[in-house]
């Protein structure tokens, strides 16, 4: 059981949340409430990571972050190590591929808030941020929680992009999913089996908790 990889995977999942969620929530709210032409295109763009093969995403991420890119080079000059094949690079890649998982459930949750409630909030004298904080977030909570859970589970299981952008560096980019692949290649099927089961159980638990919580919260807020 590769505990280093487990810890790394958890670190990656948490870091992705921290980096992705605030802009995702704000972006989701903006998309939910601002009608404008071409919104469909933006929504489509944000959904790209869902349909693109990880290899395509990995390829473009390497182009953007690798040592031959301006971003990669300036990162190297600043921190002394490469952006690709580092944990930081992995967090960026992971945040990118999880955009649809974070934005879509949150957007649906914001869209579900009836317009009258927004207007009632204005009539109560609430400013934009007050309304966002006291009315919208509490009501959109199930969707946001769902976004958190889906992103978490998805990051734990991500393989293709992690391999392409991170390589297989123990303690740095060898996540649990990569480690399983690694063990399989070393014919260590026992270890691979144990870790696979572990990942399976975590994923199932995460999804179950997420669905259960969301259902419970929805019931509380439903208007008869």
């Amino acid at each position: 059981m590769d505990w280093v990889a487990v810890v790394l995977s958890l670190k990656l999942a948490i870091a992705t949340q921290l980096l992705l969620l605030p802009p995702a929530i704000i972006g989701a709210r903006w998309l939910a409430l601002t009608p404008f032409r071409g919104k469909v295109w933006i929504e489509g763009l944000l959904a790209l990571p869902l349909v693109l093969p990880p290899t395509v995403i990995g390829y473009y991420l390497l182009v953007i972050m690798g040592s031959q890119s301006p971003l990669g080079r300036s990162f190297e000059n600043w921190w002394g190590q490469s952006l690709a094949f580092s944990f930081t690079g992995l967090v960026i890649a992971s945040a990118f591929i999880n955009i649809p998982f974070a934005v879509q459930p949150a957007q649906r949750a914001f869209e579900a808030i009836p317009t009258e409630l927004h207007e009632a909030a204005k009539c109560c004298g609430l400013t934009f941020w007050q309304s966002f904080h006291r009315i919208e977030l509490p009501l959109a909570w199930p969707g946001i929680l769902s976004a958190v859970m889906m992103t978490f589970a998805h990051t734990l299981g991500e393989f293709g992009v992690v391999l392409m952008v991170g390589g297989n560096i123990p303690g740095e980019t060898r996540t649990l999913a990569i480690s399983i692949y690694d063990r399989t290649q070393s014919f260590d099927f026992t270890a691979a089996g144990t870790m696979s089961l572990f990942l399976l159980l975590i994923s199932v638990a995460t999804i179950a908790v997420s669905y259960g919580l969301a259902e419970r919260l929805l019931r509380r807020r439903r208007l008869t």
Partner: protein
Amino acid sequence: MKNQSRGWLKIFGFLLLVICVPQAHAAAPIVAAASSIKFALTEIAAGFEAETGQALKLTFGSSGSITHQIEQGAPFELFLAADENSITRLATQGFSQDGGRVYASGRVGLFVPHAVQYQADPQMAGLRSALQQGQIKRFTIANPAHAPYGRAARAALKSAGLWQEIQPFLALGENASQATQFAASGATQGGIIPLALARTPEIETRGQFVLFPTDVHADEPLHQRMLLLKNAGKVARDFYAYLQQPVAQQILARYGFDLPAKENP
């Protein structure tokens, strides 16, 4: 209410910083190696760590993909390839200070899983008749595009005149290790795999293996070269030296590698 939000923001920012800021402290150097020497190198590295107390991080893949990663800025300090071309390519691009050193020569052979009924022989006569009888549905080699052992396998099949015939049945492993896994798993009816990997207990018990003479893959002689990369630190250099010493060489020999002659470019 406002103070509460500010508090959350602070914790948040702190966590983000702590997790994401790159670890600047000196960590164990990363040694990248072709997957064919996985077991041999792991043993050697363990010995090195026991002897010197210095830790190493190992990562394996095909020589081609590791080369590509280095070109993309992967932070490896030492690279043990399964061929010479990868090394030459990196050296010419200026990723190292010298041209590296041959540390071993690899061997390939034919592996036939127990469940399949044909003989494993160096001339591949058994394979030929199995092909003609339609017994072969899948045959695995490493991907010649980026694995030297794959190129060697292709050369061997060409010299036996079987390359065209076996084309439709080829299942390419991403590297020599994956090809070995395919061969041993029973999902294929045989494959051409490195001797070093065939010698491991998990593989040995699953089928017959026969070694090819080196002249059948003269195009890809599998002279394996290693390279110290530009940013190599002290520990990496020590390991580079260690690999050339008798204790390491013995381990390599045990795994079926041919050792380089005393004088070496």
